[in-house]
């Protein structure tokens, strides 16, 4: 039997139920025993503009997405126009046959420059500027059009109402029917998705049955999909991962100001603020919840979370580039005052408002340098949903142990990735128990009597001490004494050396693949999955590759990185930014310059096929300095 590996994009207008539709598809495949990996793409818009979910279905957990698609499911003309590039040999294009005459000029929600590009492409191919013209072009590219009378099918199935409201269910149903997913699994997903509304469930189930019947009546070729024994799994996004990790890591106070793609994390924490404790013994103590506060701006968000931290509460905030910029001064304050605080920085395309709903990894250098003056901080990064969970727990631990701001980077692509996680291990990361105690009068909050630079923590409510943004003495009072200044600076930076020595390498950088390889990829964040998939493909072709995957940028594992890179024959840096920021950090810390780079900064996710092709280009040339900029993405 052929290995199951299905690539699906379902698209439609924002607010048109694309999320619901992709949720139905994911769940139905999940109930059939498969794993689904998906990424959501959307405009900065509430209703009308093009949005889509790109998914991949496999028996094993997929780690990446790929083009060309196996299914392009279009709930509107825009989806046909926008996704020409995604079509290849064998792509089945499911669409409403009533939109065939739709003209590109009527698709007003397509951004002008995108529309111009599509027009140019259609002109070039000699096709008319309509959906059917585009379908013709797709046919030439190997696509298989499946026109379906959407309105007819829905109208016959429902008791009344607007048929287009059911197009998302219909799109999902047609995809699943043709993929060979048993109708019972889609019914089950529908019952879950619309759980509380019986009437809605019935109408949607009726549409689903009509879609399956339609496929049968019209003798559509359907795939054989072997049913696998299903196991319980968590369906989580990167935002979920960040929230779950924080909750498990002891977070009890979270602040935020609304911003895409960060605020989902805070909403998820708020939804789960009523905690369920692990054992009945603890349940007696389980009088707790998490306070989530929406603030007036991001300055307030970081300041309020810092205020909470000094009462001994594990506190954090979550934001994206523009909000993070506003937090700079307070991060500097947390540095000098040694406040344990976590800032989860969901990166999106910058600068300024940039691409507010699109991917980017352009805030690394900023995260390393935010705030005036010199102070210790930690900067960590996650590359998949599971890492989001455990890194968030670690971030809170590091903040507490080393008493400093911890910046946790998660890119938008990962924030909006949905993935199936077999297990959340409550014992994978320890949560050190710290009692909030009353110290003796001799205790000094910023005691210099320490080998580690870590003074014993005390909290407002238990001890009397002072904090100030000025340089300060051991009690926390203002000083401008030249000698004390030096000692305090040294004490604070000593903590970073201690962090570097205490934290295991597996939390800082990981080498995937064989130690000796022809090609060493270097990356961070959400490209981890696609590169691992590319390495598997290349391995089958006899190319030995490995991946130096970076997780911690401050303190930076310089020796480890230097050791690997100095042995590598060819190094390729892969990042979602223009300047190769991680490569710059490597050069700064090790002196090694990486001259071969695969970069993408158009805001769209990197896919397996793109990285594979770019890698082949780089491997196939003698050029030592080469930069391949990836362009794909609707």
């Amino acid at each position, binding site marked *: 039997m052929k290995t199951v590996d299905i690539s699906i994009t379902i698209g439609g207008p924002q607010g048109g139920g694309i999320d619901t539709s992709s949720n139905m598809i994911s769940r139905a495949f999940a109930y059939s025993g498969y794993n689904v990996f998906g990424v959501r793409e959307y405009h900065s818009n509430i209703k009308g503009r093009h949005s889509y979910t790109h998914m991949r279905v496999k028996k094993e957990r997929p780690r990446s997405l790929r083009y060309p698609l196996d299914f392009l499911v279009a709930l509107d003309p825009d989806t046909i126009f926008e996704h020409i590039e995604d079509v290849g040999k064998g792509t089945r294009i499911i669409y409403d046959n009533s939109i065939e005459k739709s003209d590109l000029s009527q698709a007003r929600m397509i951004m002008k420059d995108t529309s111009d590009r599509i027009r140019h492409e259609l002109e070039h191919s000699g096709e008319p500027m309509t959906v059917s013209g585009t379908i013709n072009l797709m046919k030439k590219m190997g696509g298989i059009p499946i026109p379906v009378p959407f309105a007819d099918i829905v109208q016959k199935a429902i008791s009344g109402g607007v048929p287009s409201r059911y197009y998302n269910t219909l799109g999902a149903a047609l995809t699943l029917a043709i993929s060979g997913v048993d109708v019972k699994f889609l019914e089950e997903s529908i019952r879950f998705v619309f759980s509380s509304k019986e009437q809605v469930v019935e109408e949607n189930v009726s549409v689903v049955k009509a879609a399956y019947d339609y496929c049968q009546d019209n003798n559509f070729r359907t795939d054989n999909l072997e049913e696998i024994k299903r196991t319980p799994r968590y369906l989580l996004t990167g935002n979920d991962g960040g929230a*779950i990790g924080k909750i498990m890591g002891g977070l009890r106070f979270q602040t935020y100001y609304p911003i895409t793609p960060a605020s989902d994390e805070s909403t998820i924490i708020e939804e789960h603020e009523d905690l369920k404790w692990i054992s009945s013994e603890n349940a007696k103590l389980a009088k707790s*919840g998490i306070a989530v506060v929406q603030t*007036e701006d991001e300055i307030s968000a970081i300041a*309020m979370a810092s205020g909470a931290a000094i009462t001994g509460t594990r506190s954090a905030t979550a934001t994206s580039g523009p909000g993070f910029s506003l937090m700079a001064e307070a991060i500097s304050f947390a540095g000098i005052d040694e406040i344990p605080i976590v800032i989860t920085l969901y990166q999106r395309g910058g600068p300024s408002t940039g691409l507010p709903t699109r991917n980017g990894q352009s805030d690394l250098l900023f995260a390393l340098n935010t705030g005036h003056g010199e102070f210790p901080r930690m900067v960590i990064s996650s590359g998949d949903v599971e890492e989001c969970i455990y890194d968030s727990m670690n971030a809170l631990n590091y903040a507490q142990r080393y008493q400093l701001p911890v910046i946790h980077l998660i890119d938008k692509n990962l924030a909006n990735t949905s993935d199936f996680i077999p297990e959340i291990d409550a014992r994978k990361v320890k949560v050190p128990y710290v009692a909030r105690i009353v110290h003796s009068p001799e205790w000094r909050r910023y005691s210099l009597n320490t080998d580690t630079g870590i003074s014993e923590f005390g909290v407002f409510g238990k001890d009397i001490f002072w904090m100030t943004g000025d340089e300060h003495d051991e009690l926390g009072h203002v000083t401008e004494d030249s000698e004390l200044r030096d000692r305090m600076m040294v004490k604070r930076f000593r903590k970073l050396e201690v962090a570097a020595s205490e934290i295991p390498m597996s939390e800082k950088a990981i080498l995937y693949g064989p130690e000796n390889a022809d090609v060493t990829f270097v990356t961070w964040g959400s490209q981890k999955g696609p590169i691992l998939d590319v390495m598997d493909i290349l391995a089958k072709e006899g190319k030995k590759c490995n991946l130096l995957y970076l997780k911690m940028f401050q303190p930076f594992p310089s020796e480890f990185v230097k050791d690997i890179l100095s042995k590598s024959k060819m190094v390729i840096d892969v990042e979602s930014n223009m300047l190769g920021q991680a490569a710059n950090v490597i050069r700064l810390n090790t002196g090694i310059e990486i001259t071969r780079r695969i970069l993408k900064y158009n805001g769209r996710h990197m896919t397996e096929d793109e990285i594979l092709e770019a890698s082949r280009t780089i491997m196939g040339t003698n050029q030592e300095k080469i930069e391949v900029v990836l362009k794909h993405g609707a």
Partner: protein
Amino acid sequence: MVHNFKTDLTVDWCPGCGDFGIVTSITQALTELNLDPKGVVAVSGIGCSGKTPHYLNIAGAHTLHGRSIPYATGVKLSNPKLKVIVTGGDGDMLSIGAGHFVAEGRRNSGLTIMVYDNEVYGLTKGQAAPTMSFGEQTKSLTKANIFGKLNPIALALSAGYSMVARGFSFDMKQLKEIIKTAIMHEGSTVIDILQPCPTYNNINTMEWYKQRVYKLEDDKSWNPIVSVEDDAKTAGDKFANAMTKALEWGDKIPTGIFYQNKTIPPFTKRLAKNVPNYLEVTPAEQRIATADGYTVVDPKETFADKIIS
């Protein structure tokens, strides 16, 4: 032994500064309220006013310019059992920190906010603050002030503060009583404290104020308190009276309590409706780990809604 609420640090404010009277009023208020010194926290911003926490023998945070309110709110909301006082200058509170000043009115977290109002930025050599009148030219200004004057009392009332008052740094008896009422008030209070800056404000001097201030409470019919017994009309009238008094400025300047509404729930109680046992076991007091050092949270139970079974 009675706790000394004053530290023995050398105070480096200018001789004749109004700040001295404020610190004395605060320490007297804390002493008379007989509060646990570890149960009170002082938070400030930047400037002369920002130094206040260092002179108070309670836990204190001297934070960023304009940001004292959010830092203080974080302290209060993570440990609602603490009394939190906030000190800041007119520029700190009403210019760079104006957004937070307004937002806190909507929250009503339970902060005692003292605005050190001397109409100038002292520590940076006397620039005009938002409370300086239009056309006024204090001695270090090269030109007369071309900004209008912001009214802190009217702004605080509009923002929704449940208690709004004005004190005068040279009337420590009245100021102390206002501070005491504010600390015991459940919601947030703004106290606009008139004070001279003897170094940079040669117009609004101690004498200038002394000739103009009068006490609202001297009028026996003045009743600024809104309680549950008041109907909507009475409550509305009390707010309108406060607003009318807020607009008085010039030859006569009212001091005292303009408004105290005891019916507006503080933010802590609003949060308690959503967060289980928030007031009983505050975020600052919660257990986060088991005795053997692992999370107390059961992922299977807590995130059951995320499981596909």
